[in-house]
């Protein structure tokens, strides 16, 4: 049982390039989230999705694009990467919309923008 997977696990890119981070979950969870984690800032929500074709902005959405055509996939695209987007990116999912739902995290993607 794979659970929630992210790819690639590590990525080095250059400023201005487009990068897509993939997230796949096998539980059919309704909600999916993208976070970035940086020293001194903790986990910050980039985008989230309540269901296929429903997405919404989080705390730090600028420079990112998401889509969710299928329940199990939630790719995150950096349209034109900047050095400030160097970070560790985590995808997470939760089963239901009720208050108090646990979030399940993927292993993360470490992105370095040169």
């Amino acid at each position, binding site marked *: 049982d794979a659970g929630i997977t992210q790819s690639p696990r590590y990525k080095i890119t250059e400023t201005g390039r487009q990068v897509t981070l993939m997230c796949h979950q096998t539980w059919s969870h309704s909600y999916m989230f993208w976070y970035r984690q940086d020293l001194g800032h*903790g986990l910050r929500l980039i985008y989230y999705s309540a269901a296929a074709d429903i997405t919404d902005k989080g705390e730090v959405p600028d420079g990112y694009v998401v889509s969710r055509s299928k329940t199990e996939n939630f790719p995150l695209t950096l349209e034109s990467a900047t050095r400030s987007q160097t970070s560790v990116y985590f995808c997470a999912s939760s089963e239901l919309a009720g*208050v*108090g739902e646990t*979030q*399940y995290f993927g292993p993360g993607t470490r992105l370095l923008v040169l």
Partner: protein
Amino acid sequence: SQKIEQNSEALNIQEGKTATLTCNYTNYSPAYLQWYRQDPGRGPVFLLLIRENEKEKRKERLKVTFDTTLKQSLFHITASQPADSATYLCACNAGNNRKLIWGLGTSLAVNP
């Protein structure tokens, strides 16, 4: 704005002792609070959830308390082991939606 604060300093304790981590929140009243564990190079893993109407929750060697008067949650690990060494994150719901507000985490080191 809504804010979660955790001890920024690392906590070092001796094996067998009880570790106590603190999570304080300001400018709102969360309906629930969650604790996660994060190991280096890995994603956070859920440990416990406590709701605003609950004073205490336990799971094996873990105990969480929620004091709405003090606006604080305490996370206890009893009979600590070196394997408990990790960073522990506190998260609260952000108002009525499904988003979470996260603390920066407290690093715990349990020495043999």
